[in-house]
């Protein structure tokens, strides 16, 4: 094993100090978070560093935590080091009223469609994205369906009794 989680963590702390926080290892996968302004700097460091070499963005998505005021939306990057076969997870949090996060498309081409999907479902506004528009849902959709204030069920449907079908209800 050439690259361990401890090495990655110490490298990040050495470079960014107190800025990178909340290191955990759920199921052995290193996970940490950072202020959203730093996301590109950290991704660039992870990409460029000779030993880290996280050059493959496997996944990118958002999570909505409606009760976490000021940091409701988490944008999660899953990175893969193909040389040592190590994966890490990197999160930034943003206010839902100003969901601006810098785009990673200049660094990872795969971020293009994944950021469009994240915009489509959560409304994260990726600053600098070349083509930030809906990718999966209909263009006429006027809300972000995966945000928790919106119920899953189709609201245009009138033939179902909400009580009988268990529609609606509360979130959390």
């Amino acid at each position, binding site marked *: 094993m050439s690259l361990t989680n401890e090495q990655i963590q110490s490298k990040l702390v050495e470079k960014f100090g107190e800025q990178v926080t909340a290191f955990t290892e759920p199921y052995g996968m290193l996970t940490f978070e950072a202020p959203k302004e730093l996301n590109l700097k950290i991704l660039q460091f992870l990409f460029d560093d000779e030993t880290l070499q996280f050059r493959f963005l496997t996944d990118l998505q958002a999570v909505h935590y409606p009760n976490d005021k000021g940091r409701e939306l988490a944008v999660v990057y899953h990175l893969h080091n193909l040389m040592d076969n190590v994966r890490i997870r990197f999160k930034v949090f943003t206010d839902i009223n100003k969901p601006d996060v810098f785009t990673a498309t200049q660094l990872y081409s795969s971020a293009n469609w994944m950021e469009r999907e994240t915009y489509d479902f959560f409304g994260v506004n990726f600053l600098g994205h070349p083509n930030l528009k809906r990718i*999966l*849902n209909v263009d006429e*959709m006027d809300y972000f369906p995966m945000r928790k204030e*919106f119920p*899953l*069920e*189709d609201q245009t449907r009138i033939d*179902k009794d909400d009580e009988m079908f268990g529609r609606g209800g509360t979130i959390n």
Partner: protein
Amino acid sequence: MSRPVQFNNNPVPTDYKGHISVVGMPDGHMGEGFFATKLSEVVGLARKNSIWPLPFATSCCGIEFMATAAAHYDLGRFGSERMAFTPRQCDLMMVMGTISKKMGPVVKQVYLQMAEPRWVMAVGACASSGGIFDTYSVLQGIDQVVPVDVYVPGCPPRPEAILDGLMKVQELVGQESLRRRNSEHYQKLLESYGIQ
């Protein structure tokens, strides 16, 4: 030494009796050397026994349809073995499977490309009502975008059910008045879908 080839040594005479069905004659007057009936009856008879289906299959109901069209259930017995994958040749659009809201305009476009007279069959719960997909991304029944003639229930329906639906379509086709497509009622129906 070559092997003696033997086959069909005891041929069983084929029993055709009762296995070939012929469409019955429509109502009319018959006499020595003539038969008189209504034009609509003859046209209906011809149409209903040669419906060309357009399979619009998006999921598991489509697999059931493949079984229906194959030898065991054999859609060809109803004169519908000729599947065409261009809507311009077809009489019956069979929508089988979940139609998402993004797919809705495609279904409508295909329907518009079909020539009159045209019929639509919604096969399965999803095409009929959205089925279990009571969600923001799924069209809650294709009758929101195109008029539907026959709904086949089931999730997915068995081939027998699809055949039953086809026979219901045949009934509609055979009895349809030749003027229905020009009627005000029909024009209003199409207008309610924003067609024409």
